[in-house]
């Protein structure tokens, strides 16, 4: 027999699974709607329970009604907590993805939990996004915010690698054409399959984005 709060619980179990995943599973549109509907239904029940009292309800005189009201109230409160926690886990994840330099297209093109970055040739088709429209908005705007914040520093890449450096200079191979980049030691033209000995800090971003591969 389903009980108030059961649907909310399902949502939180989704959130629990999401915590352990590296990607973001599809947004549970239906479940979220159902929980919100449950809250509205409960609110209606409360209103109709209170209606006969015309605003002068005395809990000690009407213990049974008071108990029902409390159960309804607690169920609404519980559902609210589940909804908020579910969305918070997802926005945390979105922020993490932005910090890691994920692309909105990678996320939007993602079907159910495929690995990141396999979206080429998939564009234009009727792909189902794992993000809700509001989440896509959040992702974009948070990305802009982070870019704005990062822009204050020209010498430090806030989203750079957190590993302590091993060598200042590294060998890299170019996997995809990346055009010309400017370094302290002059311009380098990164054409596919060529190899360079470069300063790690200059190319870190390109390695993360998959243009270059670190050798050795």
């Amino acid at each position: 027999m389903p009980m108030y709060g059961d649907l909310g619980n399902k949502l939180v179990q989704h959130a629990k699974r999401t915590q352990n995943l590296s990607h973001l599973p599809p947004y549970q549109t239906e479940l979220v709607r159902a929980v919100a509907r449950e809250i509205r239904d409960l609110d209606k029940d409360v209103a109709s329970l209170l209606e006969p009292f015309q605003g002068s309800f005395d809990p000690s005189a009407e213990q049974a009604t008071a108990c029902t009201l409390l159960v309804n109230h607690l169920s609404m409160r519980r559902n609210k907590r589940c909804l908020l926690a579910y969305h918070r886990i997802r926005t945390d994840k979105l922020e993490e993805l932005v910090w890691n330099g994920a692309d909105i297209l990678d996320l939007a093109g993602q079907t159910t939990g495929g690995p990141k970055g396999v979206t080429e040739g998939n564009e234009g088709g009727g792909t189902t996004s794992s993000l809700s429209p509001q989440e896509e908005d959040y992702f974009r705007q948070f990305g802009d915010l982070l870019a704005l914040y990062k822009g204050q520093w020209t010498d430090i890449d806030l989203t750079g690698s957190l590993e302590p450096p091993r060598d200042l200079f590294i060998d890299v191979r170019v996997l995809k054409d990346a055009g010309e980049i400017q370094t302290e030691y002059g311009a380098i033209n990164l054409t596919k399959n060529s190899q360079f000995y470069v300063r790690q800090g200059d190319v870190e971003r390109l390695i993360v984005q998959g243009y270059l591969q670190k050798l050795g």
Partner: protein
Amino acid sequence: MSYYDIDAILTDAEKIPCTFQIDVPDLGYLDNQPGHTLKSGSRVALPIWLAEMLAIANTGTIDMDDPSQSSKSFITFDLPPALGNDVVQALKADPRSVPLRDQSAHFYALATHMMELSEEPELSAVLRKTFVSRAAEIALHARKVGGAGGKGKGKATKDDNASNLGVGGAGEDFLRGLDEWERKLFRCAHDGTKASKEWMENVKKR
């Protein structure tokens, strides 16, 4: 314990045995009888998020001088079977042999929550011993698994950051019986060992 803490929310969904102290016409559905009155004395298992407040709240004034005159709580509650005498005795006998997860995935969180609601000094002592002695066992298994991860595959990087506790052999049953707190401990110990292993292998590449 934060409002947004997923594990706290799931712990609050654990059910505990409750007894209603008054008749409530509209709540029959809690006892699988929608449309019927929930009678005083009915025993119903309710999630903590509901039971806790129903037990604390009552409808009238509190008479400090004579508690029997105070108006009743809506419900009274007992410890859930997961924390019952059978389990406690089994833990006293051999903490490592009890699959806590079968009792509750949030065993310790449930227990600490219940101990906040009612004093259980004996339970507290047993659980402390249980937690600490099982932790030593957890550390042992984690070291084996975390250490082996780097050795066999050379580059064990992204395969086991999820909650999979894929271990074979004797420890498998023990690890399957870990509750959420213990799983977290296992992950901490496992990740620590693994990172050391990776560092050790990297020294040579320098």
